[in-house]
């Protein structure tokens, strides 16, 4: 009975998909992510979202936003916070609508969890499951990558389209210990720099994180999976120390929420061959202001909630209509739960520092297959591999050509969006 229901659901989903919602191969004649692919099944992480008490959409409506990826599996993909057809709300958001990106015509819908799925095959004993809420997309078209002051700006110009997705959950304890998070990165520039990479990004050292307010390493516990590799970069996450120092301020002082509750996931990602040659490197920093959690070893589930701190802030502080005031109607509401839609601590304020995009692939090929971590790059697919596409060139100019911050002024919030988000 359940399989019949699943078959019907899949048929309905296929019928409801836009024509572009099918991904396929990329070759040496330019990257393309769109074309016919035979659907062979559902990804492990497909359909894992179920509505909470504040959400009005059904799971069925949610899972209509899906895509069949290169591996033949069906994945959830981007959807707006509110379903335009029914008007129901999902209660979470995935960032900027990728259909506005100029890369979308090449890339198509972004599958959520394809690298996680590859890890299921690559290392079945050490899988990494990530929730649905954390997939966040941002993009920008035609942005200048050369610093515009001084000599370089006078002589050179490189403009790029960038479309990035990171699984960046900022509502649970997951990232306190776990450094593996799926990243999807598409970049195309006027100088020929182009890459299309999907991988599990190892962000910093597993088992702990870097404290936001003073840069101290905080050890928390064992990561999942236990063999998570060390990566470049770091996960900068707030903890009780930062909240006490910058949020719980004294009389007349103003709470500094930016210092208290800022996350910066500083990735450093490489596509690398067995002999150590780095084909591509990119290191975007994914920033979140005002998440719905901070690390608190004394709290339940080691997860502190900023909205709960609003109840214990000094009423004599310099309020200035701050985030707690906005969340609690100037202190008249108390005891709000972390997932209350009225809480401003929901992780909808984000931006990305694009940073460096280095390619050393002059001799090609453009199409590579790597393990889920971007390693063991090979010209031939192997079990658990992911297809990557890197332009045939070397873009080491001797000076910095790196992306600026994108999305700084955007707010992905909606009245219905709430933690977990």
């Amino acid at each position, binding site marked *: 009975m359940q399989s019949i229901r699943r078959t019907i659901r899949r048929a309905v989903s296929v019928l409801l998909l836009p024509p572009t919602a099918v991904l396929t191969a990329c070759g040496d004649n330019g990257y393309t992510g769109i074309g016919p692919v035979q659907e062979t099944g559902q990804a492990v992480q497909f359909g894992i979202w179920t509505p909470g008490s504040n959400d009005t959409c059904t799971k069925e409506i949610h899972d209509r936003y899906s895509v069949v990826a290169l591996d033949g599996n069906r994945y959830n993909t981007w959807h707006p916070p509110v379903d335009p057809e029914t008007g129901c709300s999902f209660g979470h958001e995935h960032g900027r609508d990728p259909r506005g990106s100029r890369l979308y015509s090449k890339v198509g819908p972004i599958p959520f969890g394809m690298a996680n799925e590859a890890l299921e095959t690559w290392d079945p004993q050490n899988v990494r499951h990530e929730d649905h809420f954390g997939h966040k997309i941002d993009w920008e078209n035609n942005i200048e990558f*050369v610093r515009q002051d*001084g*000599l*370089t700006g*006078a*002589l*050179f*110009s*490189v403009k790029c389209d960038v479309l990035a997705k990171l699984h960046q959950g900022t509502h649970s304890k997951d990232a306190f210990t776990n450094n593996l998070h799926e990243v999807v990165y598409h970049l195309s520039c*006027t*100088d*020929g720099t182009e890459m299309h990479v999907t991988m599990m990004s190892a962000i910093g050292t597993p088992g702990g994180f870097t404290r936001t307010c003073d840069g101290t390493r905080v050890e928390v516990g064992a990561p999942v999976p236990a063999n998570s590799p060390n990566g470049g970069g770091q996960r900068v996450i707030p903890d009780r120390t930062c909240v006490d120092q910058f949020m719980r301020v004294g009389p007349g002082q103003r709470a500094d929420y930016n210092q208290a509750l800022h996350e910066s996931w500083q990735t450093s990602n490489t596509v690398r061959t067995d002999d150590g040659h780095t084909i591509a490197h990119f290191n975007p920093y994914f920033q979140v202001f005002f998440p719905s959690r901070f690390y608190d070893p004394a709290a339940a589930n080691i997860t502190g909630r900023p909205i709960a701190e609003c109840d214990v802030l000094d009423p004599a502080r310099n309020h200035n209509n701050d985030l707690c005031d906005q969340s609690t109607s100037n202190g008249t509401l108390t005891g709000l739960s972390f997932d209350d839609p009225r809480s401003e601590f929901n992780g909808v304020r984000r931006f990305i520092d694009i940073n460096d995009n280095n390619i050393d692939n002059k001799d090609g090929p453009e199409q590579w297959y790597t393990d889920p971590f971007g390693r063991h790059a090979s010209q031939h697919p192997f079990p658990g591999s992911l297809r990557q596409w890197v332009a045939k060139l*070397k*873009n*080491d*100019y*001797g*000076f910095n*050509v790196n992306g600026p911050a994108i999305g700084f002024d955007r707010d992905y919030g909606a009245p219905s969006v709430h933690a977990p988000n």
Partner: protein
Amino acid sequence: MRCSGRAVLVTSLLLLFAAPQLLGQRVAERHGFWFGGGVGMGSARLSCTICRGGRNGGMSGYLRLGATVTPQILLGAETTVWYHSEAAVDYLLGSVQAVLYLYPARKSGLYIKTGFGLAQYSAKDDQDQMSTQALAGQFGVGYEIAVNGGLSIVPYANFLGSSGADLKFNNTVSSLSANTSLIQVGVGLTLH
């Protein structure tokens, strides 16, 4: 600066195209060693995959010397300089070339020239500098209007271009290949 540049440009072009008729084709005798120099306007461009590609106007000039092979063929060496400064960035293009002058008519000051040598383009501000050095060639045309004895006033126009070469940024060799070009118009003096 801009007005004086335009004046040089207009004067040069007038002299180049109209002066021979106005001055009745007076021609200096061409024999022995010769040397000369000139100033004018130049428009230079740096081209590469990420270069902005626009042309920059600036002052330019040359110094040249050589020997007369026949009254219609001269051989020599020439150095060319172009300079531009804008928004705290200084640009310099220099070239040293062997040049060949051909005078189609013995009784005319009209010449065409070609040259081959090296060119270097550089730019710097107070923090960074970049340069590229490459083989270069040039073609030009001019008219020597005799003034007194072997002295001539010479309106001229030149095009100089370089091959692609690696670009150096703060002494680091970049993966960029760049080439340069220069269009010059001006007035010079030559003493045969």
